[in-house]
């Protein structure tokens, strides 16, 4: 299943936030979206998953989600969004509970996904007992449990410290190599964007438009070793963003 954004425009409190966004997320690839803060990246992501309604334009699913997919468009949130009163297993199970699966089937999926994400030892722990990195791993496990067609990731590493971020980035790359998921990955971190994105879309400051989409051909598994080559892409992204970011930084917030 591909995801296509056509002519998407959104106005918030009289001011345009997003204008004429056209994007394509082909199946099995990762699109990173970068932009200065307040450019509407997160709004765009909320529209991709149907949590917010665009004022004009549309988000289209092209083709059917794969067989056995429970929740085609699945989010991974910046602040994890785990229920603090549920254990790790309970949090993963939550995503499966309204889907007419039997108790045994839910338990089987939870066990399976916790094993795949190496979280089985933590199944009864409460979120407050876990580090930030582990909490995000649980949130990723929860997202995988519903066998998504497309993952929508809203700055999933931004709430973590630099070292944990590096570890989780390796996890994500490993996960993509194994499972080949489709994703839209919103971030303000250019290094993350060039590590994980097959393509990187650069948004301008408010109202957000697509300034450019750059293609990064290098296979994901080689990127950790070929950082210097990636730095070229990163520099190019920064040139595109620099003025926008500076201007966005000077703006007065009026909403």
């Amino acid at each position, binding site marked *: 299943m591909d995801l296509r954004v056509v002519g998407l425009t959104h106005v918030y409190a009289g001011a345009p936030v997003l204008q004429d966004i056209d994007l394509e997320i082909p199946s099995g690839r990762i699109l990173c979206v970068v932009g200065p803060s307040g450019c509407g990246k997160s709004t765009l992501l*909320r529209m991709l*998953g149907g*949590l917010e309604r665009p004022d004009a334009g549309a988000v289209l699913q092209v083709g059917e989600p794969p067989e056995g997919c*429970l*929740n085609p*468009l*699945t*989010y991974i*949130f910046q*602040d994890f*969004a785990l*229920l*603090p*009163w*549920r254990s790790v297993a309970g949090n993963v199970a*939550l*995503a499966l*509970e*309204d*889907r007419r699966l039997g108790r045994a089937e839910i338990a089987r999926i939870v066990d399976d996904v916790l094993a795949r994400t190496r979280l089985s030892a933590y199944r009864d722990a*409460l*979120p*407050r007992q876990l580090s930030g990195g582990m909490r995000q791993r649980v949130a990723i496990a*929860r997202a995988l449990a*519903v066998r998504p067609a497309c993952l929508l990731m809203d700055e999933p590493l931004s709430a973590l410290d630099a070292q944990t971020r590096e570890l989780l980035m390796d996890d994500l790359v490993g996960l993509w190599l194994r499972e080949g998921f489709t994703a839209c990955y919103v971030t303000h971190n250019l290094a993350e964007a060039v590590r994980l994105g097959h393509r990187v879309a650069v948004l301008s400051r408010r109202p957000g438009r697509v300034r450019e989409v750059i293609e990064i051909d290098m296979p994901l598994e080689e990127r950790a070793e070929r950082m210097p080559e990636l730095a070229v892409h990163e520099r190019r992204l920064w040139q595109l963003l620099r003025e926008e970011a500076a201007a966005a930084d000077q703006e007065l917030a009026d909403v």
Partner: protein
Amino acid sequence: MSEPACAHAREGARPVPYRGGGFAPRPRRWAGAAFLAGLIAFWEMCSRLGWISPLALPAPSEALAALRDLAQSGLLAKHLGASLGRLAQGWTLGVLAGIAAGLAAGLFSLARAGILPLVAALFPIPKIALLPLFIIWFGIGEESKVATILFGTFFPMTIAVYGGVDNVDRTLIRMGQSFGLSRLSIIRKIVLPGAMPAILSGMRISASIAIILLVAAEMIGAEYGVGAYILLAGNLMATDQLVAGVMILSAMGLTVSWLLGMAERRLLRWRA
């Protein structure tokens, strides 16, 4: 001064003065009980030494004797049974209605527009002032007393629950929606547990209000009940019985607080 400290002092170095600490009260398990026992012992001593006139305030031992008499005559069970029955009914109904109204006000715009001004208008009215009306509506029997407690606990409960629902993390609700949970599931599995700390603190406040209203309601036309017992004792100037009645009320308050404390520890284990 130790050897290295001496060496530092010669260079004109001294430790940075400590100015942190404090502002973090910790539970002291037996301090509360000990303080209460000490106070009662002091009171007893004052009475024995004649510093407090027995007419003004009976000694704790006299009040306890009155309590023992009451228990032996079998009346304690009757009074307590009647009171606890009213308390349980009125408080349970008030809490349930308050949770329902608070949830509605927290979740639906129209309900919020209707309920909030109503609560603001009716909460400040002392429910005791309405007791004569309740007696006309529901009769002099149990119903009017239960209704007084129900109304008295309903409003604080509504406010607590509504505030709690408002404070539930919106990203958790978005998360529920993004995983395709039904509205009912989101309320049951995300909103209610998220509002549970506020619900429990609302229960604490409303339980105290319920006990106050119970006594007030029982002072009008009740044969049995702790309030009726205290009123009768007051009319007879039997201060030892009066203090005994007050002790029963305190014990009720302590018991309720202890039960709610247990519920909090159980239901809010997920909080640090």
